[in-house]
């Protein structure tokens, strides 16, 4: 049993901070696009048109049944052979959005399906426009019903961002690999990074709970 020496790691807080910043940025952008893709995917798979339904379901199943790293490699290493060259960070964001979108889509579809048809009929009877019905009677209650599952999914998305270090994105794990090369203190650096990730997850969990109160105040009325 050797001894643990954290000095090399802890003297490089500036690098770690850069890594954290990039991890948070990449994850937040990917979460936004994943939510957009998720809503789109859910609407496609609930469409009345068979072909759209097929596209929606094919997207969800193809992504959910293959590993993220293979999808990432396909986008970063595979697309150039079709003439589409991407820098590591955009490639990472695209891959994470597509990946997160498939899971989010499945969750949101469940939320939309849980909405009582009578609600929509009443909205029509009240003379609400199709946009208003979609926005206030379908999307908002659906999202509020599945908010917990979506935030759990976003936490998994944040964690999956560590994988993009494999295409040399200098986010937290990538920085960890760099520091390991400088200090050769491999166990110490990954222990520190694990603690940082756990803290990031705790912060994200807390923020999601706060956001729930902002977006869906009606859930907390009278509580």
């Amino acid at each position, binding site marked *: 049993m050797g001894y643990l020496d954290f000095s090399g790691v802890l003297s490089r807080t500036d690098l770690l901070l850069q890594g954290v910043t990039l991890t948070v940025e990449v994850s937040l952008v990917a979460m936004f696009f994943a939510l957009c893709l998720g809503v789109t995917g859910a609407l496609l798979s609930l469409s009345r048109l068979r072909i759209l339904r097929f596209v929606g379901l094919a997207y969800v199943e193809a992504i959910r*049944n293959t*590993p*993220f790293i*293979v999808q990432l*490699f396909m986008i970063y290493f595979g697309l*150039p052979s079709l003439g589409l060259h991407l820098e590591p960070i955009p490639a990472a964001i695209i891959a994470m959005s597509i990946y997160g979108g498939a899971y989010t889509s499945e969750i949101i579809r469940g939320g939309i399906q849980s909405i009582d048809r009578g609600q929509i009929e009443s909205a029509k009877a009240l003379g609400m426009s199709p946009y208003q019905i979609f926005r206030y009677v379908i999307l908002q209650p659906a999202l509020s019903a599945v908010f917990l599952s979506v935030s759990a999914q976003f936490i998994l998305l944040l964690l999956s961002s560590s994988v993009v270090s494999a295409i040399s994105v200098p986010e937290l794990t990538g920085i960890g690999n760099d520091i390991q090369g400088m200090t050769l203190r491999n*166990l110490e650096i*990954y222990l520190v990074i694990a603690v940082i990730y756990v803290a990031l997850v705790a912060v994200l969990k807390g923020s999601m709970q706060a956001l729930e109160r902002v977006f869906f105040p009606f859930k907390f009325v009278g509580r």
Partner: protein
Amino acid sequence: MFQPYTLTHVYYMLGGLCWTIGLAFVALIGGSIAGAVLALMRVGGNRIVSKCAQFYIFVLQGTPLLITLFIAYFGAAYMGIDVKPIVAIAVAFSFYAAAFLGDIWRGAIESVPKGQREGAHALGLSAFDTMRQIIVPQAVPIAIPPTVGFFVMLIKNTSLASIVGIVELTRTAQIVSNATFKPLDVYLTAAAFYFIVCFPLTMFSRHLEKRLNA
């Protein structure tokens, strides 16, 4: 200079698929044993024990799997345990699986109505017999669909072992891709292999869930 992408390469990747499935199975078995212990610790009634299990689950679920793999990989060497990387990685996957299975199974155990436990207690069954004869048989059907779902996740996540140099499906794909310089074709093949294994399991999990709710 580059080899053409041939069936030989596909066979080589099939060999990698065997390692992928093997690793996922080992992790499932190791994770099941530790996960069962964690689930029992969570529902056992002792607050401190329950908090310990909860903390373990929180930490393992809050750490990216890749970092867990790195820590196991370097930690084994640090502790002076001389094991092959594949063993350290299999152990890491088991620890990871335990955190998720422990959580899933705790949920299943807690979803058995409270009256069942009270009834068993009233009949004079011991805590062990209550668990074995009353609670677990009712919790198993509830637990199976999410467990199968998690097994799919486990199969997909073994792909991360490629980063620490375990030659499973994704790593074989990388090797073939470097040799043939046909990354898109090669990774599509790898993705197809994963899909062929995972999709039926996903469908099976969904089927079981539907039957349970029906």
